[in-house]
């Protein structure tokens, strides 16, 4: 990489690392994992920085890399065998907050990584359907359907709160 490109990359990372780590945290639910996740994504971004820099929105490029890294890790051999949380259940999550509000992070941990990514990008990152589809590398229709499935899953896990929120 040329020095000029690397300077631009460093500047980007300094400015966006925290935001990307926050997204990573929303995706994985753990700051330590989020740190590893964002580091892996930024290393990959380094390799493709020329392409990302040339893109209209480097953020979208970086976000897509982050989501890909997250999904790939969740699909990996290790992730499939070392499940950090219990399998999703139809029963409501037990770890409700002290004020009766259910812990959203615990519920998100129990749905599939893809559906979680859809919810995180749409409702935490505030992306619209098209932007979410771009970040996930899928069609808008898939985003809509996965959003519906994810909300349905959340409703099963958090019947009272999700029902009220909607």
């Amino acid at each position: 990489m040329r020095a000029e490109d690397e300077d631009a990359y460093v500047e980007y990372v300094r400015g966006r690392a925290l935001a990307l780590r926050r997204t990573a945290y929303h995706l994985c639910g753990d700051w330590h994992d989020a740190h590893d996740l964002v580091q892996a994504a930024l290393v990959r971004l380094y390799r493709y920085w020329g392409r990302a820099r040339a893109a209209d929105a480097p953020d979208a490029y970086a976000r897509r890399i982050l989501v890909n890294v997250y999904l790939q890790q969740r699909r990996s051999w290790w992730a499939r065998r070392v499940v950090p949380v219990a399998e999703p259940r139809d029963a409501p999550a037990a770890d409700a907050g002290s004020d009766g509000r259910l812990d959203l992070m615990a519920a998100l941990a129990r749905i599939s990584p893809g559906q979680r990514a859809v919810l995180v990008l749409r409702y935490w990152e505030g992306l619209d359907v098209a932007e979410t589809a771009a970040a996930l590398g899928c069609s808008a229709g898939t985003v809509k359907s996965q959003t519906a499935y994810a909300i349905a899953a959340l409703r099963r896990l958090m019947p009272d709160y999700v029902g009220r929120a909607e």
Partner: protein
Amino acid sequence: MRELFATAVREPEPPLPPRFVEEVVAAGRRSVRRRRAAAAAAAAVVVLALPFTAAVTPALRGGHRVAPAAPAPGPAVLPDRFAPYSVLTRDVADRPAGPAVMIYRYGSGELVNQWQSLALGADGRTYRRVGADEDRDGVQGWLLSPDGTTVVLTDVSRRIDGFTLVDLRTGRERVVARAAPTGLLPLAFSADGRRLAYAVVDGALDPIISDTVRDVATRSGVLRVLDLTTGESRPVPGATPVLGAAFAPDGRLAVQTGPTTIRVGPVDGPATVTLTVRDGQRLVDGVAWSPDGRFLAVAGLVTSFLGNGEYEVRPEVTFVDPTGGAGPVPAPVEAEQLLGWRAPDRVLARTSTTEPGEISEIPLDGGRPTVLARFPGGSRCEYRSQPCIVYDLRLASGLVPALTVRPAGDVDRGPWPAWFLLVLAGSAVGVGLLGFALVSARRRRPA
């Protein structure tokens, strides 16, 4: 739903560790280097695997079926430089390549026996091993048919059941002149390739004391002619013993029956002419007759005394009038071996102005010889430790008149042998695994 996410409980956000950006940049650089190394390793594997794939694909498609090779169109070609020794040359039985312009034995045996019996295709660039010859024990003798399609093989050190004929177009072999085990020596093809003159001996063979079939034939051999189309074999009346033989263009036969005697006559009748040559001169087997039947070639060594007790021995080809008269004949030419006739006034011969020799065209009017094709010099045999030696060289006599000479180009030795493909594939896998191991080791290294 957005409200739910906005109010979600989450752990306090820790600060980024110090030097986070620097570590990310360093890891990015390592990642780029690893990918470049992996790409280089992959490219190396591809480069090594490509020839393997290219070679094995037709082999997989065609298996080991032996397809008849089409004869090369146009006149036969001689390269101006013959290909060097190579262990990768395929066997004619596996990959027949059509008629040959030349057969020769090539190699060295100083420390390691590395000999090959080779057929050079009429296209001038296709080389094949005649494995049926290499696999035989004992001392071999061979001939190439005038059209270059057939090699006759024999073992001149022991009694055998018949000649082995190798069809260079198909790689197939068949045995002819079947008889009770006896000593057989092929000497000459007729111009049309239909008949084969050969010597038969019944005496004891002991190659240890030089009693090969050829030696015994000079004392008690009987000349026979085999019709290759019918398989019928007949003795030539009065043709015994046998020191050499050659068919005339008109079908007559010249047979040297003594150190100084050559009889000329029909195949099935008594001699009509008896010629006298100098002791030590031998009728050139197979190609002694000029195309117009006017000359007969004999070969021998000539000793020249240089004075001061020094002398020089030169190989010489001399021409005689086959009618027994005193007709004009060309002057002798210096040559190791007469190989064929380009025209009644020009011959091809093996000469040795340089090691390990060359094939030259020699005009019979006293003009200077022209070197047409050279054998590669230098130490190319026995793992490049010894010079290669050429011997038992035969040309397809019927292809010689129209023979053209072209600069040596790409050499076709046939697809690489299976053992070499295995070595190559093993090397490719080894390089791939090494590259993978290196990349993996770098990847595992802590940031």
